């Protein structure tokens, strides 16, 4: 991983984490399906965009770790273990699905690109949900009860549907804006932009926590 990619991880991870903290909490307060929206629109868009423009395996997991860290260590809203675990899980699942994929242009049909959006978003959402349900009790020193998870499995599979559908639109949109390639910026502009935007994301998240609570 070179410095350019590390700066990309910092920027897009911070952006993702900020949106999780601000937009995600807002959607939850409005009783909207925050998890599906955040996975289908934000997570899939961020991860697929960076995979396409940087063409680097492992970068998306790095971004998920930065976003999870922002969610987890945000000093003013307390530790949100479940969300952080879910975000990192999404990064791991994305890496697994896109292991051999770096460019959507290798597909001839838009239906295939849309299908990749559906598969990525649906599996990231239900995978994140499942991993969270298993790991949260463990990290919280509570006994994990598999019966609770099995009984709720149909609900998890059902809730993945809106995330999957949003993922279709998300990936088609990313495919159409792929020409806006941040990785091609000259170094004298790239580093100040990425670092300062990442700092702004962290400041906005903390400010939001202080003002909104």
């Amino acid at each position: 991983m070179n410095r350019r990619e590390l700066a990309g991880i910092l920027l897009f991870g911070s952006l993702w984490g900020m949106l999780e903290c601000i937009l995600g909490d807002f959607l939850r307060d409005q009783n909207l399906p925050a998890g599906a929206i955040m996975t289908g629109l934000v997570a899939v868009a961020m991860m697929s965009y960076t995979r396409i423009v940087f063409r680097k395996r492992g970068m998306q997991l790095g971004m998920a770790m930065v976003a999870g860290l922002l969610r987890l260590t945000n000093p003013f809203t307390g530790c949100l273990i479940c969300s952080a675990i879910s975000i990192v899980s999404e990064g791991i699942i994305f890496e697994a699905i896109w292991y051999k994929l770096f460019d959507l242009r290798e597909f001839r049909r838009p239906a295939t690109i849309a299908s990749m959006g559906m598969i990525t978003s649906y599996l990231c959402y239900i995978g994140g949900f499942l991993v969270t349900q298993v790991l949260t009790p463990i990290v919280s020193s509570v006994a994990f009860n598999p019966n609770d998870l099995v009984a709720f499995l149909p609900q998890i599979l059902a809730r993945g549907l809106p995330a999957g559908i949003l993922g279709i639109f998300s990936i088609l949109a990313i495919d159409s804006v792929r020409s806006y390639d941040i990785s091609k910026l000259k170094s004298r502009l790239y580093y100040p932009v990425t670092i300062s935007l990442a700092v702004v994301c962290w400041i906005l998240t903390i400010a939001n926590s202080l003002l909104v609570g």
Partner: protein
Amino acid sequence: MNFVKMMNWGKENTIISIAMFLLLVGIISNIYVHATKSVASSDFIEIDGKKLSVNEIFSAYEPKTIQNVITKENYTGIPLEDIIKLAGIKNPETYSYTIIGSDGYRKTVKWEDMKSGILTKSLRVVFENLPKAYMVRDVVKIEVIK
């Protein structure tokens, strides 16, 4: 060249088939969830087969405010310990409890956790030491695991 084209065509068809399968899984799960959804009344909570009126619960006991150590937020509600006693559960410390929401979401906790938990006015359970994943919303049932 044709072979490469055929390989790509096959790969694309596989991807589309997987997406169609997942779409189908999502649709069938939604149909199943809606078909089996219990029409639970928000006026009652079933505890070990006994129906307790929500009004009865909230008029019988004084609400208590707790702070969740993870979210650092304060919540006010009736202690779950009192509700279990109101339901007439004998030797409550010897059992585990599965708390079930109207959407089927459920979490099983021990008596030690129940003692630090409350039921809020919005019928959500909150525990002092457990993460948000344990805050079951719209509680309709508490099963006693013997």
